[in-house]
């Protein structure tokens, strides 16, 4: 069995470790501290843990003000309540003011599966990607979460960190090279590239393993930073495999798939075919997490089927697409 860890606990441990070294780091709670793994921080640094209660609009403004005076606030709460709800505060008080504030959206994607669409977060990346200068990070395993928290504290400026809730397996070595804005090639391959991110990464990983067993050489990229996007790595995938499948626990509108499409649709990126796996234009349903993922094709075996079908789809179409792009 692979080692699995709770992403919220992992975040909390990483934040505590960062705070031990940097006395400007604050933990900010909207009645959300214990659910965000910040109890160890509160116990260790009670004076640097600030509780606000359930006021997610005001809390972003307070974080902005705290940053103005030199503090580095980490605000962690349920993802939709610190993204969609206070979007204008995010945009103006953090983005427009270029404040050194880190917002952590937990239970992102479908991970609040049983609580329904009010608590799921399938649009956070889409709306936040529009904020100039914001860094959007979706770490995909416990190692990436720890390294992302370290990178977030070191980065000067606003940053959004998106994590889930159910335990996720460790995929990387503890010292995997990690840099904001640079994706990680987890597995090499030449037939197709699967680009995945965040909560969806480990199922994409399992799908790649299965594809290799079936004789399909699938490359796997962990695109942990969705903004700024690693355009070079996307173009490398286009050049090297000619086919890309994106896998994300997010709406197809505006998320990882859209971001990748924005790159490969434009010169000078080489032509490539693209398929996207994610949630379509609907409010998602509710139920057990794994079964809910199954409704939207996000389980590993479904990813395998989708990739196989994609690679089998008419070659003429693909050739025509390449020819028309190549002739420009």
């Amino acid at each position: 069995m692979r080692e699995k860890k709770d992403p919220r606990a992992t975040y909390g441990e990483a934040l505590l470790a960062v705070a031990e070294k940097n006395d400007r780091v604050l933990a900010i709670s909207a009645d959300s501290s214990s659910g965000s793994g910040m109890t160890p921080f509160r116990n260790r640094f009670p004076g640097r843990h600030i509780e606000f209660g359930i006021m997610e609009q005001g809390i972003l403004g307070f974080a902005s003000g705290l940053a103005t005076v030199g503090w580095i606030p980490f605000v962690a709460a349920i993802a939709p309540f610190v993204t969609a709800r206070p979007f204008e505060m995010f945009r103006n008080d953090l983005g427009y003011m270029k404040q050194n504030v880190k917002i952590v959206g937990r239970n992102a994607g479908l991970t609040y599966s049983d609580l329904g669409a009010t608590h799921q977060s399938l649009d956070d990346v889409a709306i936040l990607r529009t904020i100039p200068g914001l860094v959007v990070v979706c770490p995909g395993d416990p190692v990436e979460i720890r390294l992302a928290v370290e990178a977030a504290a070191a980065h000067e400026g606003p940053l959004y960190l998106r994590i889930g809730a159910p335990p996720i397996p460790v995929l990387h070595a503890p010292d995997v090279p990690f840099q904001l804005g640079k994706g990680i090639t987890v597995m090499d391959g030449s037939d197709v590239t699967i680009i995945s991110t965040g909560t969806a990464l480990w199922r994409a990983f399992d799908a790649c393993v299965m594809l290799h067993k079936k004789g399909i050489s699938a490359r796997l990229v962990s695109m942990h930073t969705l903004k700024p996007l690693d355009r070079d790595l996307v173009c490398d995938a286009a050049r090297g495999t000619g086919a890309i499948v994106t896998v994300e626990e997010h709406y197809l509108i505006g998320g990882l798939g859209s971001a990748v499409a924005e790159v490969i649709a434009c010169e000078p990126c080489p032509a490539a075919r693209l398929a996207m796996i994610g949630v379509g234009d609907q409010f998602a349903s509710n139920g057990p997490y794994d079964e809910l993922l199954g409704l939207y094709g996000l389980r590993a075996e479904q990813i395998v089927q989708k990739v196989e079908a994609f690679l089998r789809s008419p070659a003429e179409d693909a050739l025509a697409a390449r020819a028309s792009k190549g002739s420009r």
Partner: protein
Amino acid sequence: MTGLSSDETARLRDAALQMRQNIVRMVRAGGGGHAGGALSCTDIVASLYFSVLRVDPANPLWPGRDRLILSAGHKCMALYAALAQRGFFDEKLLETYGSLNSRLPGHPVMSKIPGVEANTGALGHGLSIAGGIAMGLKLRGLTAKVYVIMGDGELAEGSNWEAAAAASHHTLDNLVVFVDRNGLQISGETRGVMNYEPIAQRWTAFGWSARQIDGHDFSQIIEAARQTPFETGKPSVVIATTIKSKGLSFAEGRMEYHYWKPKADELSRAERDLGMAADDSKRRK
């Protein structure tokens, strides 16, 4: 009566008059602007910048400075005038108001001009930001104060009341709000659009210490500001009754001058009202 000397009163009256003149110059340069609210809060802003705030124009980011957050960011012409007259930047820059890429946009931007402490404009943001600054100063052991200017129409924004509750819960007695209660907003009288009365009781119910003053009386403004915190451990709010478009005879107390786009002879009437030289526009160019 307070101990405000006649010299200081005269100095503030001159500074405020100059600010109003500069606001008219900005409206002339830009072809329009949110003059109504800028003119109603002018005496408050003048009192703060010329008698109260510990700021250093030569070192605008001095960590120990007092801060002023203009939550009602559309009143920015008052802020720009005060900052220029206080020496944060050259007054000639005021003439760029409304031009392409001007450093003085219709709502203030901190990266564009020294002395601006927050990018306001969307209402209901300033109090939270100011609360965070006040909290951050206390955490660092600094004694500076944070002043906020809010509009009365702005009080309808729910986010303000999140901030008000948090400020009292966290005992931010270094936070001082001036409500520029000019009684008017775009659609009419503030009480009629969305009634905020009883305004002082609303704040005190949220744990603030409140005082009501005449927002055009320098003695009352200065006395209130200097006596903050009104109660130790509580944030303070000064509800300042003002007149919208104060100083312009044809516009005072009239809702249609919320955003003033001068018609016909209005600019010259404004110049006469404020004792500006007849050739002011030529002289300035």
